[in-house]
């Protein structure tokens, strides 16, 4: 696992400061979308080897949710960004 994560708010920190909160790729369906779409969103996850996008929460630091793009085979980290920034949120 990547040992250092560059938090956009706190700088480079050890991975022990973070919790991994799961896959960041599923997109929430519309509220009235079909049951199969909701089933896929809630339960179905791919398990790829290579480049993945994950939610990491900086629990021991700024406590923000981040999106970390990393390779789960080579442990290389490509990018770290605030999860709210990705959907046009504040901060």
């Amino acid at each position, binding site marked *: 696992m990547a040992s250092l994560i560059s938090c956009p708010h706190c700088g480079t*920190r050890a991975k022990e400061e973070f919790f991994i909160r799961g896959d960041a790729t599923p997109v929430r369906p519309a509220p009235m979308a079909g049951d199969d779409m909701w089933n896929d969103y809630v339960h179905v996850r791919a398990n790829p080897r290579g480049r993945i996008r994950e939610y990491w929460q900086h629990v021991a630091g700024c*406590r923000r949710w981040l999106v970390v793009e990393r390779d789960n085979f080579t442990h290389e980290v490509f990018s770290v960004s605030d999860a709210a920034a990705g959907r046009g949120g504040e901060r």
Partner: protein
Amino acid sequence: MAYDYQAVHALDGMIGAISERRVNHLAAHRTTAIAMVLAAPGQTAEAAGILVANGEFEARFSGPGEWLVLSEVHAPETLAAELGLRLGHFAFVADQSHGRVALTLSGPDATRILANGIAVDLHPDAFPVGRAANVLCNHLSVNLARTGETSFDLVVMRSFADALVGDLKVMARSFDLSVDFATR
């Protein structure tokens, strides 16, 4: 029926039995006015401006749009109300005076002691005086602020204060450290 409540410090009975001062000293503050300030959505710059412009408050970075505010001027009972008055609708304020414990570590080996448990570069160029950050100290999340070349403030949740002092004693085992309540 009315009850009388007595404020008891989280470290009462844990430290202070031996009153001494060695080269490196860890002082626990008896009463500290502390509040958490979270800027309203989109009002981070305005809230930060009000906090910085007012010399009565010391705002320490905790997260984006979020600060731990300490005050030497205001009492623990009044700080949150004073902040609420000044910040208005720009931010939300929560009193933390009895929820957190403030410690000051000072001495020539302060950075070396902290380096035994904190994985953040504490060189003056990377972490200058006035800088603050939430960091992991062993397994505890603490707010670390550099108040001088060789002095640091640690603000920790009240129930973790005993564990943090214990950790700091272990981290300082190869250095000369004394622990006591602050006299002020």
